[in-house]
């Protein structure tokens, strides 16, 4: 018997009939051929979040983003007029990577007035114009105007910087995000600038890690021992049910309850949670975000008790807003069909004192304790999926978002393949 109300169709999945209820194949997560198609069909056509405006605090601030999945690196910069621009990170002379520090495959950031290639000293303004060619008279009919940096489509939403590698994106960023995401407009991300940035290489397909964090069916089991002994029977017996699921275009979201540590008896909590007044769901004492009410897109179904919203923004960006006034992001950057780089960022309103800072530390350390269990399990899943001993897997109603992700991946690859065939 469901504790929380489901749509009139009887299940969340039936509410979106295009998803079906059949067992799913995970061939899309183990096939090198499918991965090669995803690179062009998805990562060279979708808008990709590469960072936030706080990473570009001043004119001349820049950072690079390695996009191995698309065989490129981009440099994102705030130019001298304050406009955020993106370029392929390649010198127009003989193809050297333009911006890097010490290690060509590592990301770099800093502040500069112009980009100077390490190789032969060609220089570029921050708007991409080539401004200097070493020994220019040695070249043949070379006009610097023809040798600006190769621009990448770049736009912002709510302080999140997106790029699109398509020559002519078929949608603007706003169109691509759609109302379910842009309804979050007005949420004060810009106040939450205290950042914990995590990174790991994970031995699984990128979609498997998205799956791991877009269903919470696993949480009472995989993370059972994270709960105090007294709390475990209740946690496991209750299982997990989402309060609200919603799908719009290629994006999806889930609202869940939970995390009200301040209402729980001490024996249901870890002693350190009681001392720091913090835990997995964040500090118990929420900061003042200056909001009279939440933006329409946050807890959009007005569920109580609201714990968090997890927005899965296609293809590889997760935005998770916690009821206690902080947020986190996940990014999954594929490096092969069975490896990817995972990035997790936790953002808090900057601590005003040591007590607040310690509460952030408790939330951050707890996050890592959980994430390491998740990450390791993914490799175990990848290994056995690749055996192809089993090729059909049943997904339940709480796993609806996994079903949607893999359908969207298939749809984008199909559409691309059809376009390419000229059908």
């Amino acid at each position, binding site marked *: 018997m469901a504790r929380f109300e489901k749509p009139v169709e009887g299940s969340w999945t039936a509410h979106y009939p295009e998803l079906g209820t059949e067992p799913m194949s995970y061939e899309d997560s183990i096939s090198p051929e499918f991965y090669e198609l995803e690179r062009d069909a998805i990562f060279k056509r979708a808008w990709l979040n590469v960072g936030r405006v706080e990473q570009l605090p001043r004119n001349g601030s820049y950072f690079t983003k390695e996009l191995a999945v698309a065989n490129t690196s981009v440099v994102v910069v705030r130019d001298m007029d304050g406009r955020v621009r993106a370029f392929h990170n390649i010198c127009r002379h003989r193809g050297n990577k333009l911006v890097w520090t010490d290690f060509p495959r590592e990301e770099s950031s800093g502040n500069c007035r112009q980009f100077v290639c390490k190789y032969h000293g060609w220089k570029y303004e921050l708007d991409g114009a080539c401004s200097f060619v070493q020994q220019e008279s040695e070249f043949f009919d070379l006009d610097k105007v023809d040798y600006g940096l190769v621009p990448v489509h770049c736009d912002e939403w709510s302080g999140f910087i997106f790029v699109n590698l398509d020559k002519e994106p078929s949608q603007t960023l706003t169109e691509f995000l759609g109302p379910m995401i842009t309804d979050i407009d007005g949420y004060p991300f810009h106040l939450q600038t205290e*950042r914990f940035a995590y990174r*790991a290489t994970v031995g699984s397909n990128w979609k498997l890690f998205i799956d791991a964090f877009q269903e919470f069916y696993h949480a009472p089991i995989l993370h059972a021992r994270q709960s105090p002994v007294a709390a475990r029977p209740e946690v496991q017996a209750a299982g997990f049910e989402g309060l609200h699921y919603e799908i719009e275009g290629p994006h999806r979201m889930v609202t869940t309850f939970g995390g009200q540590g301040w209402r729980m008896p001490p024996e249901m909590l870890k002693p350190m949670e009681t001392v720091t007044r913090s835990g997995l769901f964040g500090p118990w004492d929420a900061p003042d975000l200056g909001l009279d009410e939440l933006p329409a897109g946050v807890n959009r179904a007005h569920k109580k008790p609201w714990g968090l919203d997890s927005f899965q923004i296609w293809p590889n960006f997760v935005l998770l807003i916690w009821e206690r006034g902080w947020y986190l992001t996940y990014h999954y950057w594929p490096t092969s069909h069975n490896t990817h780089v995972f990035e997790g960022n936790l953002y808090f309103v900057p601590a005003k004192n040591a007590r607040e800072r310690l509460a952030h530390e408790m939330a*951050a350390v707890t996050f*890592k304790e959980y994430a390491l269990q998740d990450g*390791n399990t993914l490799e175990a899943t990848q290994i056995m999926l690749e055996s192809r001993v089993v090729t059909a897997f049943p997904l339940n109603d709480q796993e609806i978002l996994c079903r949607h992700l893999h359908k969207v991946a298939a749809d984008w690859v199909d559409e691309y393949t059809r376009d390419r065939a000229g059908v």
Partner: protein
Amino acid sequence: MPDTLLPGQFSELEAFAPTWCLPTERERFAKRMASSMEDMQAFYDAFFPRAEEAIAYCEKFPLDDMPDDAERLLQLLYSLVMVSFPVETWRQAHIPDSGAAYLDLLIEPMP
């Protein structure tokens, strides 16, 4: 190095300070993984009862202008958070089922 690392009222914790006053999560996580349960339990047992007192002491100062000894006390609190997982939850340093998985913290607030 000064003779003492911590504020005077926490002198009984001095023995733990050289080991556990560590400025970054990377160092604290590595120290946890390299420590025995006996050592972490001893640190936890000595410090946990005084954690609230230590928080109250540290929060008197602005975060961006803490005296060195208070900042080290705050680092000691971060380490208490770190060892609380082995001590309160796992009974071992390693997170069960996390195998060779790692998650590097590249950017963190200071202090």
